[in-house]
């Protein structure tokens, strides 16, 4: 990872596994996921619903919903292991070192408290400031995220804000203690396109100014393309491909990423049909042996059915696909035409 080679990465995730014990056996929702985030870097994490992208984010901020649990691997923030910390310890890190932004700004704010009270509470939890200093900082934060009339708006309640303004408040909350990393889970999905653009521009500006790293979890490739430095594409709980955003969008190496990019309607050319990947992502109970993508893959060989590929160098990215291994995919199974 070029961005992380000069200095220590801010966040290191190594072989992360997240499990859900159920009556019918244990489901592996995140399976052997590894990546780094450098200071100030924006890492996009994309994938379809159920790919494990939100769970990865929740595992990092230590907010996995029980019975989900981290079953293996390590998460390190600034070199310190954080995945096995006691709840109270993690609570201090969350907010102070890692900020979180969730999809729905209405549910992540308390409707009974004014936004000022929520901001001041968060600031005082993590910083040794007096009430009036905390209030001054809260107003400053609201101004920074572009809320007009911050001095007056600080006493308003969440329902008095529109969706876009609420998401700005949530971002201000995440920024309270000057975290090094923000985990943003679908921060723009609930918003209209014109508001979406405003929020993305705001996130980008704040990260640049504060040097905050962002893990941006979304299903919207357009948002990633505009915002992220690198992108990790997840499929069935694993990272299918990871690399610089431009390479992944323009020269995807994994057949899934290629199909995914082709299926997005583009304003460039108006085609008769969109590229489609037939079938659907397997349920967690039905992940096939070998490569999880093999039932939908047009390039598959015998090896893909039995042996599971790990991330390997593929051009400028790294892809979990035997096509990029010197051994290849093995004997072909179907005589389908390979349109590379």
């Amino acid at each position: 990872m070029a961005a992380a080679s000069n200095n220590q990465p801010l966040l290191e995730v190594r072989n992360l596994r997240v499990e859900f014990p159920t009556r019918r056996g244990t489901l592996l929702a995140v399976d052997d996921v590894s990546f780094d985030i450098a200071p100030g870097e924006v890492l996009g994490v994309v994938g379809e619903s159920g790919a494990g992208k939100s769970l990865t984010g929740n595992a990092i901020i230590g907010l996995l919903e029980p019975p989900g649990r981290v079953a293996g691997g390590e998460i390190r923030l600034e070199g310190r292991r954080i995945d096995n910390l006691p709840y109270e310890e993690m609570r201090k890190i969350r907010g102070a070192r890692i900020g979180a932004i969730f999809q729905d700004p209405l549910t992540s704010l308390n409707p009974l408290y004014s936004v000022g009270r929520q901001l001041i509470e968060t600031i005082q939890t993590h910083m040794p400031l007096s009430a009036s200093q905390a209030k001054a900082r809260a107003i400053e934060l609201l101004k920074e995220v572009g809320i007009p009339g911050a001095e007056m708006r600080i006493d308003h309640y969440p329902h008095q804000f529109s969706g876009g303004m609420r998401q700005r408040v949530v971002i201000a909350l995440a920024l309270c203690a000057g975290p090094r990393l923000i985990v943003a889970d679908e921060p723009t999905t609930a918003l209209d396109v014109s508001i979406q653009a405003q929020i993305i521009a705001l996130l980008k500006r704040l990260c640049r100014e504060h040097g905050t790293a962002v893990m941006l979890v979304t299903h919207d490739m357009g948002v990633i393309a505009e915002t992220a430095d690198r992108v990790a594409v997840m499929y069935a709980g694993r990272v299918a491909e990871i690399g610089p955003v431009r390479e992944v969008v323009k020269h995807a190496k994994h057949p899934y990423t290629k199909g995914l990019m082709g299926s997005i309607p583009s304003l460039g050319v108006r085609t008769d049909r969109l590229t489609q990947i037939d079938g659907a992502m397997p349920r967690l109970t039905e992940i096939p042996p070998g490569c999880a993508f093999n039932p939908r893959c047009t390039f598959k060989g015998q090896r893909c059915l039995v042996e599971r590929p790990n991330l390997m160098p593929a051009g400028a990215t790294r892809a979990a696909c035997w096509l990029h291994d010197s051994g290849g995919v093995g004997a072909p199974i179907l005589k389908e035409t390979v349109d590379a």
Partner: protein
Amino acid sequence: MPDGGADFVRIEGLKRHFDVSAPWLVRKLEGRPRQIVQAVDGIDIEIAKGETFSLVGESGCGKSTVARLVVGLYPPTAGRIQIDGNDMAARHSRSDMAALRRRMQMIFQDPFASLNPRWRVFDIIAEPIRAFGLSSGKADLEARVGALLRQVKLNPADGRKYPHEFSGGQRQRISIARALASEPEFLVCDEPTSALDVSVQAQILNLMVDLQRRLQLTYLFISHNLAVVYHISTRVGVMYLGRLVEVAPTDTLFRRPKHPYTRMLLDTIPDLEMTGRQRSPVGGEVPSPINPPSGCTFHPRCPFANDRCKAERPKALPIEGGTVACHAIEEGRLPIEDRTYALNT
């Protein structure tokens, strides 16, 4: 715009207002006025047979209300809707109305909410066939449902299952099969793919295009996703606060957008091509439709607004094969520019 007469769907001066006032006693005690949401405030649309007309706009602009008005789920406050020459509001006999209803169906946004979880898929799809009395017996009904399932690329044996056994994309296929069951000519699709993942969205959009060709369907397609609209539509109408601000053939709308709001919407599309085009996030948000701004409702957010825009509501004027309601365009204050997009290779 296609020539008069031949329009399959014709909407004239359509209005729908919702009363959202507090209860009478509360109003009287607290001296509050009535509050009316002008969800749809006078729109005209003509849709030719076999075309896909899309409505785009942000949430709250009234596009879904138009969809519900067109299929008759809401009665209009004012205006007329004609489907193939039949006025929807005129008094028809029960059988006439049923015959008209059979010819139009709706596909909803959320395939998790629009299918009855207690019914088997077979019964869900068979319901319109039974309701309109289209089948001649049990064997015929089974054959029809089987054919419908095959048409949407599902297995006839799937009819025995319940909706929860299917993924979101498969459920939307079931919704489409049900909508096609009464052999309609006109489908109203309200955000049919916005609850789906992109790869599944591509499957459903391709299916809709195939079906349209095979069955000569006419679509009214409602969406907030401009890239999807660009892909699927013949013509596009842009809505803002209950009014149509611009209508144009798809290519014209995306290559030579005229209304400032259309331009703003196009600027906000996330750019997958990263051509370095800087998005210009326009400040402000959609105002409340309870007290919409005077004159042109877009004037508080419009960089080209002047005193006339604040006072006078612009009329839809024909231009380059479409219509646009904007004083700045009419007066020639706002030059029309061509837009280019990077080619996706």
